[in-house]
């Protein structure tokens, strides 16, 4: 039996005849962190939305924790969570009200205790009673992560988890995520533009371009394959390269 908590098989999404994501396949095993990279419009958000069941794939399948997300997503959503800068928490509620609300929504036992522990771990104490709409961008990012961890998820989807954090806070947050994963053994899919973050956190990296995965592998492996020194240089090589006649799928195949 596969240990993959996320399994995407030939997933595609078409909007009005335009392919936003084409024939994407990958998996994320228990305890693994996979980074999803790509320029704006490459298809990262569409892919993450399909994983969460916010979008139904036009073709292919998405399975999470062994369940088909198109049909039975409610069986597993209580064990999954996500954070995205594109989704807010109710702005008129205080941080503690929001976290309590989500703790109850996810059926967390002892919601007060869970919120208190997360507030301590993520250092939310000083603004716990402030309205979410009045937080700074960095504070919002931390609260958003607290919401994503409220149910102690087995699968965690993170879109730009350290966006708007200062370098010190971002470094602390990455360390926290690594400790969390080591303790929980969860599968993490991380969409980010921060290459240093991806290199530090991810076991495997998927680079998307025009809706397709055009490169994949461990960060050092990709760096070696492209003959570069950093992942950022690899990313720029891919992003600036004109598509070949054979298309990006062939590029990935050739690279492998």
């Amino acid at each position, binding site marked *: 039996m596969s240990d993959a908590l996320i399994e995407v098989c030939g997933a595609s*999404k078409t*909007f009005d005849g335009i392919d936003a994501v084409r024939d994407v396949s990958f998996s994320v095993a228990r305890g693994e962190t996979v980074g999803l990279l790509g320029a704006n419009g490459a298809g990262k*958000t*569409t892919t993450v*939305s399909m994983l*969460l*069941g*916010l*979008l*139904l794939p036009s073709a292919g399948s998405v399975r999470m924790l062994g369940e088909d997300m198109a049909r039975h997503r*409610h069986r597993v*959503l*209580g064990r*999954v*969570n*996500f954070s*995205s800068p*594109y*989704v*807010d*928490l*109710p*702005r*008129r509620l205080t941080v503690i009200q929001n976290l309590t609300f*989500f703790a109850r*929504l*996810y*059926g967390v036992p002892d919601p007060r205790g869970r919120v208190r522990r997360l507030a301590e771990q993520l250092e939310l104490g000083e603004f716990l009673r402030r309205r979410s709409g009045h937080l700074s961008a960095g504070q919002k990012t931390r609260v958003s992560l607290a*919401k994503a961890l409220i149910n102690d998820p087995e699968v965690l989807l993170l879109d730009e988890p350290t966006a708007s954090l200062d370098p010190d806070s971002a470094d602390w947050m990455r360390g926290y995520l690594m400790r969390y994963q080591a303790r929980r053994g969860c599968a993490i899919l991380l969409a980010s533009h921060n290459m240093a973050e991806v290199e530090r956190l991810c076991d495997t990296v998927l680079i998307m371009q025009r809706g397709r995965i055009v490169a994949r592998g461990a960060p050092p492996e990709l760096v070696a394959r492209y003959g570069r020194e950093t992942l950022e240089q690899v990313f720029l090589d891919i992003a600036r390269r004109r598509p070949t006649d054979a298309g990006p799928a062939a590029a990935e195949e050739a690279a492998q």
Partner: protein
Amino acid sequence: MTAAAETPAGGGSPAMRVGAMVLRHVFLMRSSWPRIFELMYWPTIQMILWGFITTFLMTNSSYVAQATGILISAVLLWDVLFRGQLGFSLSFLEEIFSRNLANLAVSPLRPAEFLLSLTTMSLIRTVIGVLPAAGLAIVFYHVSIFDLGLPLVAFFSILLVMGWAIGMMVCALILRVGLGAENVAWLAIFLIAPVSAIYYPVATLPPWLQPLSWALPTAPVFEGMRAILHDGVVRTDLMLDAIALDAVYLAVGATLFLYSFHVARRRGLLLQVGE
């Protein structure tokens, strides 16, 4: 060239800026038919509603003397329907305004549970809104809606459920076309006001409009209310009609809402509906 004749380097003229603003709103309206519809809505509905009231009062002068209690009770019951629908729709809109819909959609909350939470919020909002008004009616006019007795519970429930059904239809529309349909939440209920027999009997309506009135659960409720207050008769037949019609509208509303939710997932609207 004189300085006065020179065109300013940036910003353009006031006329150009005003024209740009007008154009911006024309673009907005053109992209959303509900906004255009709203412009015509209020004047038309108000004219129709008060036209029927005037016709009724002119031809039923003996009714007017004892009409105060009936009219106030009608106003209060109408408010149950209005607040019920608005409470449902606004609770839904609040999730969109705060960009929280995606959080809910990926939580374990099922669409049917979401509906249930909205109906609960609607009930709470309605009670908070209507109860003080009912108390004030006793203080100011010596009219107590509670004189209706037990049938009041049935009337309240039937109207509240109809409010939910309309709320579900409104939310389904918002899910499909976006926040351009936001104002429908405020206006939808008044579409059925003229044919709901709130302040006048169904018989006041033109014969061709009466079947439409009887096809709504509101007409049997308000006719039943008048039967109690005016004639002292409890019309269980009307109540049963209203309950049956309620069930149909609720089923239609829930189906439309759930279908729109499914379509939103297919088209990716759940992340975009608040924008």
